């Protein structure tokens, strides 16, 4: 699910999303009330619709000015916490980044959300 840009080649049949070119080079904030390029908006308007189409999604994180963890947690932890997406859907999401720490962090948010969901 999580790849470095230098590793596995992207799937040719997958939907390709680049946060920098398809959303914003300046993602910022957690909720829609925090600004126009929040994690919540990215999740709800870009990521979830693509995942619900049933296709694989190749998500590219490079090219932005940088990410705040508040954005990342809302965008990715929220996939499970808010939208209740299960692992079958999440597994269709492949993340590509030259920054391995981003992949580590995103995986943590998704895993934490899944664990909390199971505890309920």
């Amino acid at each position: 699910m999580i790849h470095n840009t230098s590793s596995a080649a992207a799937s040719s049949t997958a939907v390709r999303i680049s946060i920098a070119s398809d959303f914003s080079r300046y993602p910022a904030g957690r909720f829609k009330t925090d600004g126009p390029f929040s994690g919540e908006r990215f999740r709800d308007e870009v990521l979830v619709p693509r995942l619900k189409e049933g296709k694989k999604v190749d998500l590219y994180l490079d090219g932005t000015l940088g990410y705040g963890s508040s954005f990342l947690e809302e965008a990715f932890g929220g996939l499970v916490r808010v939208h209740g997406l299960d692992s079958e859907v999440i597994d269709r999401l492949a993340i590509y980044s030259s920054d391995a720490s981003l992949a580590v962090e995103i995986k943590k948010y998704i895993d934490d959300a899944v664990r909390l969901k199971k505890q309920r």
Partner: protein
Amino acid sequence: MAEDGWIKIIIAGAQIVFAAVGWKIISLGNDKRETRKEVRTLFNEIRALTNQIEAKAFEYYLLEPNKSGECATQLKRLVKQLAALATTAARYSAKFDMSLEVATVRMKATGGDFESADRKPSGCNDLLFRELAAAVLELLDKCEAVFANCYPSRQR
């Protein structure tokens, strides 16, 4: 050919081989010393950058949300630079993989209510700063531990 002729050829050949082996040994030693210097420089840059991150985070969280936009951008950029240095370090050796530690620094510096419109300015003694300092220390400790393990100092 006379026997002493063969001996001379063998000796000359052995000298060439020994010279080549000696050159290779010296070359490897030089390469290792150069790599050690490069990695040391990289870790020094990481240390300098973490100081900047702590300072910028302190500045950011003490500001009102409507005045901290530029500071937030600078903080994210500094963390991104830190991640880039860590990625460069990891190319020297898998032992230098600090993804988890860098992720923790990012989480402490830019998590929670970072860039939230409803954020309230923090106090100087906020727990957040201590947690960030701890995350930075963990990153730097790993740098030093791995460096010492890969490039042990000679006992004097």
